[in-house]
């Protein structure tokens, strides 16, 4: 049976297949999330939601890079109070688990938004920790083990659903942050968010993004993301969701072999919202060819010495 091959469970969540829509891609409305789910996603993550509405940065917010995409949207979102209605509606139309991505500028804000998301029906919460800490302008929460553990601890205490922490790759040693998140109570980790990057136009000699700097996604970051997953899996038992540049089944399989239990897909959705189904078929064919009975059996196999 197909679902047997691809079905996975981690952190108390059961997914029919291990491909998940990454946060920030078509993640505003229930209708969009439903369309992605119809495209074969095993779970979907919403756009990151904060305590109050944010309009985001002016355009240009997206610019193409050599082998990927740069974005600096500026976390546009309607705020959790308005978005709770969308979560409730989404729960009535979705047949796959709904993860709500949450951001904040303090531990209390994270905890409060997360608990409202769960109240509205989120099956899990994913913390986007790539935003600056109010008290420490400049430094991202996800770059400081101290801030990170404070945020995770407070949020964990506020929700009774699986808590996933999405790590930033913009650190010297991602395992230090992984450890902080795990010790503070994270049930799973997503690795990784976008890589800090920029683009400059030579004619006008100006940065192109209105925010000057943004996050790089797409094939360009896959090798970095893969290394991050491998590093974390080598040291910890925690379930990992691999994310970064996954475009085809081979990319996904690489992440499983590095130690991921599931994968999130973002940028590749632009070209094909059936990318989840296509990747699942590819994984299935691979597993059959290699005589494995389940995707679970190949998780971490690249660590064999």
């Amino acid at each position, binding site marked *: 049976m197909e679902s047997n091959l691809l079905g996975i469970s981690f952190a108390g969540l059961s997914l029919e297949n291990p491909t998940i829509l990454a946060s920030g891609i078509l993640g505003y409305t229930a209708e969009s999330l439903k369309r992605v789910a119809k495209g074969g996603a095993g779970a979907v993550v919403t756009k990151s939601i904060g305590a109050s509405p944010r*309009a985001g940065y002016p355009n240009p917010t*997206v610019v193409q890079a050599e082998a990927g995409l740069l974005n600096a949207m500026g976390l546009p979102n309607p705020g959790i109070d308005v978005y709770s209605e969308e979560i409730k509606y989404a729960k009535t139309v979705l047949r796959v688990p709904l993860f709500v991505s949450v951001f904040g500028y303090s531990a209390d804000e994270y905890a409060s938004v997360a608990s409202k998301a769960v109240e509205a029906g989120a099956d899990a919460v994913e913390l986007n920790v790539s935003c600056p800490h109010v008290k420490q302008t400049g430094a991202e929460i996800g770059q400081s083990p101290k801030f990170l553990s404070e945020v995770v601890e407070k949020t964990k205490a506020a929700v009774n659903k699986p808590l996933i922490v999405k790590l930033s790759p913009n650190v010297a040693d991602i395992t230090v942050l992984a450890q902080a998140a795990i010790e503070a109570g994270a049930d799973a980790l997503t690795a990784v968010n976008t890589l800090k990057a920029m683009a400059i136009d030579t004619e*006008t000699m*100006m940065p192109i993004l209105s925010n000057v700097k943004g996050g790089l996604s797409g094939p360009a970051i896959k090798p970095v993301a893969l290394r991050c997953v491998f590093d974390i899996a080598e040291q910890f038992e925690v379930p990992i969701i691999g994310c970064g540049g996954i*475009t085809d089944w081979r990319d996904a399989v690489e992440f499983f072999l590095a130690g991921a239990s599931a994968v999130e897909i973002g940028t590749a959705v632009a070209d094909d919202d059936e990318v989840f189904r296509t990747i699942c078929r590819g994984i299935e064919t691979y597993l059959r060819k290699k005589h494995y009975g389940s995707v679970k059996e190949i998780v971490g196999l690249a660590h064999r010495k």
Partner: protein
Amino acid sequence: MPTANNAIRMTEIVNVRTESPTVKTFTFTDRLCGKAKPGQFVMLWLPGIDEIPLSIMDVNNGLVSVSVKAVGDATRHMHNMEAGTLVGVRGPFGNSFIESRGRVLLVGGGTGTAPLLFLAKQLSAKTERLSFVEGAKTKDELLFVRELDGICSGKNLITTTEDGTAGLQCLVTQPLGELLDKERFDMIYTCGPEVMVKKIFEMTEQRKLPLEASLERLMRCGIGLCGSCVIGKYRVCRDGPVFTAAQLREVADELGISKLGFDGSRIPV
């Protein structure tokens, strides 16, 4: 995935033409947009200002034109631009109007007339008859009347103004109703203010007529990723901006009613 049309190209504005007190047409060279089809749009980067979606109004030997109404910061900035100004171009994006034969009717309001002029130019030689209904607030704001007159051979162009300074004094929907009841059309195309589009959709639905309508929503990425432009399950930047009557039926609860604002919340159109 990187694609040629999504790469930003820097190009100079080579010509600026005043169309009306509030609308100017800007022309630039771009190889890829030079091959665009009617209905497609560009993301135009105004360095240091903004990046905005604009429908392609004409392509001619690698020259690409957009007609822009001054409504806010970016578009007012454009109205102060002269030939020689550098802009960045991404695109062409989106789908296009499907060419129809036989008798076609185009209904344009405001700058929505721009992509329809492009379409009319392509269709004129291929259709049995091409009729155009254009509406504006006042005479000065009726766009491209001379060009449309040439394409539609006089009596098939109907203009309306709200103040009666030119053509009929009424909204476009009034002569449209009469036309639809009197004549048979194989396809109706429309672009303009969404309340107008919605009204036209209701009129063609009542009469079971085919329709293609071009819609506008907030655009950021232009490539179907960010979700800013969604209506129902559709991404206006990628699945649209042109939608068929069947698709419009699926989004009838949002058409002319609500859209996503900059913060992703639902606001009135």
